[in-house]
């Protein structure tokens, strides 16, 4: 119905559309600039990564990826992501819910704190953990006494990843939930819904696209994070090297084909994430369509 009204109104007033339309040369220049930019800064590097990776043949490519150190790096990256993303999902939804649906003291402080990882350099983020958990730091000696390893071990890498990716989901949801307001929730409460029903039946369906988008951004950053992780990693091969760190090591060892092979893996992970996003999107909209018809 909406679509019909829009097309109807535009066909009724052709003069208005002409006024808002730029001359042809402006449109083509803009399109050319956008496309050239995309080609130069997205497609060419992406293609060159795969080209360099496969330049020395598929055998070299497979050998580089199935190397035990590479496999360990893949596993570590996936582990860190699998912990960081769900935790940030819970935190992001909780924080966005609290900020947009309630009034409370210190709300601005919370919003500022969520933005902190965006404004702090990743290297500083890594150093924060070294200063807290390092042997010369506050908790280091106590941790060492109890044989607990945080930095230069997997927990440190997970912590650094978590810290860096905190804002992604919350930041995605807050403007969305603010725009939606609280009317639907109020209506549901009036009709006798409890908190849990409210969340699953009203709030979550409303925010799911924003949430999904936040999860995807968060996921991409978690897999690709370099700076903060580099500081807390200790660079132990086969143990505390994530994929981006492994790429750097291979590159520094003149092992360019392998470096690009692992880099192409990271690019592939990103493309898979995109594909999953598109897949879910179309699936849900298919389900949504008939439901609305009924």
């Amino acid at each position, binding site marked *: 119905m909406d679509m019909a009204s829009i097309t109807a109104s535009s066909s009724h007033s052709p003069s208005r559309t002409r006024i808002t339309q730029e001359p042809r040369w402006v449109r083509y220049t803009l399109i050319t600039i956008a496309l050239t930019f995309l080609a130069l800064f997205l497609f060419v590097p992406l293609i060159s990564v795969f080209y360099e990776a496969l330049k020395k043949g598929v055998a070299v490519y497979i050998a580089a990826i199935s190397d035990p150190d590479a496999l360990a790096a893949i*596993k570590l990256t996936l582990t860190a992501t699998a*912990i960081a993303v769900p935790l940030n999902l819970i935190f992001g939804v909780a924080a966005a819910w609290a900020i947009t649906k309630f009034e409370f003291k210190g709300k601005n402080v919370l919003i500022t704190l969520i933005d902190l990882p965006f404004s702090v350099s990743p290297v500083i983020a890594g150093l924060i953990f*070294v200063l807290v958990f390092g042997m010369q730091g506050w908790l280091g000696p106590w941790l060492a006494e109890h044989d607990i*390893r945080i*930095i230069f071990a997997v927990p440190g890498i997970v912590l650094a990843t978590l810290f860096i990716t905190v804002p992604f989901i919350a930041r995605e949801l807050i403007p969305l939930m603010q725009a939606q307001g609280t009317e639907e929730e109020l209506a549901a409460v009036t009709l006798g819904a409890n908190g849990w029903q409210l969340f699953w039946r009203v709030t979550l*369906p409303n925010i799911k696209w924003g949430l999904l988008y936040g999860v995807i951004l968060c996921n991409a950053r978690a897999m690709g994070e370099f700076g903060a992780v580099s500081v807390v990693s*200790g660079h*132990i091969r086969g143990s505390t090297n994530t994929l981006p760190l492994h790429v750097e090591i291979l590159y*520094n060892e*003149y092992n360019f084909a392998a470096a690009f092979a692992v880099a192409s893996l990271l690019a592939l992970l990103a493309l898979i994430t995109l594909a999953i996003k598109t897949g879910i999107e179309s699936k849900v909209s298919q389900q949504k369509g008939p439901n609305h018809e009924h």
Partner: protein
Amino acid sequence: MKLQTWFTVLFIITSLSIVGPARADKTLLNVSYDPTREFFQEFNVAFSKYWSANGGEKITIQQSHGGSGKQARSVIDGLAADVVTLALAGDIDAIAEHGKLLPENWQTRLPKNSSPYTSTIVFLVRKGNPKGIKDWHDLANGCVAVITPNPKTSGGARWNYLAAWEFGKHYFGETRVQEFVSDIYKNVPVLDSGARGSTTTFVERGIGDVLIAWENEAYLALKEYGNDKFEIIVPSVSVLAEPPVAIIDKVVDKKGTRVIAEAYLNYLYSEEAQHIAAKHYFRPSDETIAAQYAQQFTKVKLFKISDTFGNWKNIHQIHFSDGGIFDQIYLK
């Protein structure tokens, strides 16, 4: 409803994937500096073979590489290294002093100042030596771009700096040496954090006219890129660089790896290891084996740090501490 199942599935997958890595066999962590990557890759295989042939248990040797100073800092901050094999004694001194992880007299525990191999500092220039660089004083020439890492984080960079300083002391005299070294660093467009970073800057990114490099690093670059792209220039005088090795007592005693860590370091002095070192262009400390490779290394007048600069603590205090001479010349 549908959404709820999605989230349930997500959480099940997540909780399944959080399974800690379980390693049964013993691990040994060697925290090393930048240019030893290829050497230790080969040495670790040799040692593992030797160790299991002599009835030792199965071991996994893990490697970590980076700028020597940075690596020492990580060990002080808690990186659980069983052994450190760093670029200079000063960095291991720092671990003893600030981390209290090994005794101060660590360097006397193994032969040859705990340095199983030595090296020196040479220049790598582009083929044909277009800028005509022959000796240290050519590096102070304003039209030459010099690549060297940051002495604050890199061990090799400190050897570079000290070698230049020693040359300047004799060539220009005590009073003008600081000015000379300062002139060299004015020609440095980028200070990488480790020796390997600088090599990549010079050979891969094509920045600079001359790389002040470890001898082994320079030969490795020649091997990787071919003689037709670069050549090595040996200066009139250079430094005898002694990269030392040590056990980190606090770590091995806690992990129960002292015996194997000691065997690991001792094996660096074995005939097999000395040959591997020479193969990777480190100068063997064993004289008879060194003699076999005499042709491989150019003869150059080498001075010892202990004869000219004293101990590393003083060197660090005067040159590389906050506000020290390096800060004065580089921040100027």
